[in-house]
């Protein structure tokens, strides 16, 4: 078994347009390294992230999903990140119930000025998910075929 050495997790990071996506850009501008396993999807606000998207990601074989939004109180749309926080609390406890390790999902607040925090968060998250190994729990076999 050489799985652990070879294993490259698939990680999706949902980033809000105003803070975290800009924070990710800043990490790039400052040439701060984090693993290429992280792929970012831009959304207008963390409250745009439907729990369905996360379930879909896990169904399609993602090993980890991280949501990044503005710090509490700093949401561009005033209250969006609060909605996201509440929804994700519920979703995460449901994922836990389904047997998806809770370390595979995370919510982080990253501001537009926190490039270093973005890179550090991603490094740490990838490390955590890599240790957990491949996520098989929610894999939809029908999805595997394509």
């Amino acid at each position, binding site marked *: 078994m050489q799985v652990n050495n070879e294993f490259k997790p*698939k990680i*999706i990071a949902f980033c809000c347009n*105003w*803070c975290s*996506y*800009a924070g*990710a*850009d*800043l*990490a*790039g*501008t400052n*040439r*701060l*390294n*984090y693993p*290429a396993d992280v*792929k*970012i*999807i*831009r*959304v*207008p*606000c963390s*409250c*745009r*992230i*439907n*729990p*369905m*998207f996360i379930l*879909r*990601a896990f169904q*399609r*074989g*993602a090993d980890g999903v991280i949501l990044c939004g*503005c710090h509490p*109180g*700093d*949401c*561009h*749309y*005033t*209250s*969006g990140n609060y*909605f996201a926080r509440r*929804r994700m609390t519920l979703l995460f406890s449901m994922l836990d119930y389904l047997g998806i390790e809770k370390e595979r999902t995370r919510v982080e607040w990253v*501001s*537009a*000025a*926190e490039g270093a925090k973005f*890179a550090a968060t991603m490094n740490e998250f990838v490390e955590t998910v890599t240790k957990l190994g491949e996520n098989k729990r929610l894999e939809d076999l029908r999805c595997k075929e*394509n």
Partner: protein
Amino acid sequence: MQKIGVFVCHCGTNIAGTVDVHAVAEALKEEPGVVFSADYPYMCSEAGQNMIKDAIRDYQLTGAVICSCSPRMHEATFRKAATSAGLNPYLVEIANIREQCSWIHKDMPTATEKAIILGKAAIAKVHLNAPLTAGESPVTKRALVIRGGIAGIQTALDIAEAGFPVDIVEKQPTIGGKMTQLDKTFPTLDCAACILTPKMVDCAQNENIKIYSYSEVTDVKGFVGNFRVTIKRKARYVDETKCTGCGICTEKCPMKKVPNEFNLGMNNRTAVYIPFAQAVPKVATIDPEHCNMLKNGKCGVCAKVCTAGAIDYKQKDEFIEQEYGAIVVATGYNPIKLDRYDEFAYSQSKDVITSLEFERLTNAAGPTSGQLLRPSDGKHPHTIVFVQCVGSRDTSGCGKEYCSKICCMYTAKHAMLTREKYPDTDVYVFYIDVRTPGKNFDEFYRRAVEEYGVHYIKGMVGKVAPRADGTLLVQASDLISNEQLKINADLVVLAAAIEPDKTARPLATMLTASMDTNDFFTEAHPKLRPVESPTAGIFLSGTCQGPKDIPETVSQASAAAAKVIGLLVKDKLTCNPCVAHSDEWMCNGCSSCEKVCPYGAITYSDKEFKMPDRTIAIRRVASVNEAVCQGCGACTVACPSGAMDLKGFSNRQIMAEVDAICK
């Protein structure tokens, strides 16, 4: 049938250095629907844009994916190019392969693989993009400037000059800000009051400018072009329209022991006061914390002596609501508190002062009428030590990591002026580096050293200890001669770091404008959009955005004004078309979306529906006001029936991206 074009940018070597751009273009050519795929050194250049335009026309493209820098950088550029070639701008998607790929990965195969996946995700999304048309919203032709220091004043004057009404909301009883407290200004040594007070008067006299002094912004609603702002006019217990500013109340007020904040507590004022002689508006204010009449109803002297009958002890805070098209933040700075730097004995000795206190001591309108006297005993100091970088460039966690930018120059000014006025004084300046990057700045600093004989010593002061004879023992190291120095000083002046005003953070929350970790407002782009906040309609003026000297502040203030004028001359603004919309057939009228909408953009109405069995049903359904919706998407997730979706970021689009990445 979709016909998608893919355009991969090299960005010189920025992308091509770590991503095999040719391989990306080749790989993406194989994606479904892609009819054209090519790479080019600079997609944003005219030739690059022409390549996109030509491809759109030649291949009748129905969508375009640009693999390039962040959409925050050039999305607008490429959308514009698409529009000019006849493609709806919202059929363009950007795959960010620079900031989020080539710049963070060093290994070419890894980065190339990631770039291909990001490209595939963008292609999957663009398959589902729909052409969108931006709506229009009107512009309220009035600007708000928050705080009236030199930055706010300059911005307001420039906007007013262009013919638009401007309101200045100032927390203090007078406009003028920190600059009113300064004595002379570098590098020309002209007096601050001489150049500032005429501008303050201009503000008061300009018919386009309204000053709300002693007022605060308490609430901001709306969006660019249509802000609704609540301003709290704090009770000053003096009728502004009646007060003539004669000052007789301030002479007769028996409560004379109130620390005078204008002189940083170095002398006292009365409970009813006018901050300084040139205050604008020149109106008295009663300090409710110290006024006996307001505290316990015993006194009333000021009302008796006021010939204009302007004193009104029953005045209440008043809230007014006003509409604005643009908001300029000019909240400025404050020196940091020095309680964490007790090695300099600031709290122990009156003769250890900050540079701003030094300004007051040398100012003719200050507590000593411009005589440089020790605060402890009123004697002339003969040895003065200036300490630079107190709390600036400090990575220990006590102070600020950034450079406060103005201290090197004002210290050179202080040292020079001291030596000029009192040639018998020895002046020492301890510094880490002397930073003089400005027009005529280095010449100014050299004059302090060469002509005025100021002793500049590279090294930091370790400790200041008050001695029994009233002098201060300054222990420091000279890094060039590698010696430990002990100087007996009469006065120690600390160049305290500057930090954003405390009101900036709650204000940023109200404005939904972003801030950095130091509480300075973030600009939309550090180089290309330095006076705009990422939040549309919010502009930045002066030190609220970062440390600045007066010349820089004034240029930025004028730049912000130019941007505001550019906005206010428009009659209509194009709205963001990426807004929510409700599928009325799926909507069950539950009101979940309405409850989470922060803008009140969702309303319900009864509508007639022709049912499949040819009957007519009346159902309560949601509809979105597109001019009000800002496109956050909160409602789309709250909707239990899946009727609500967001244009440009639809459920299907985002899931297509998820699928493409997970493949």
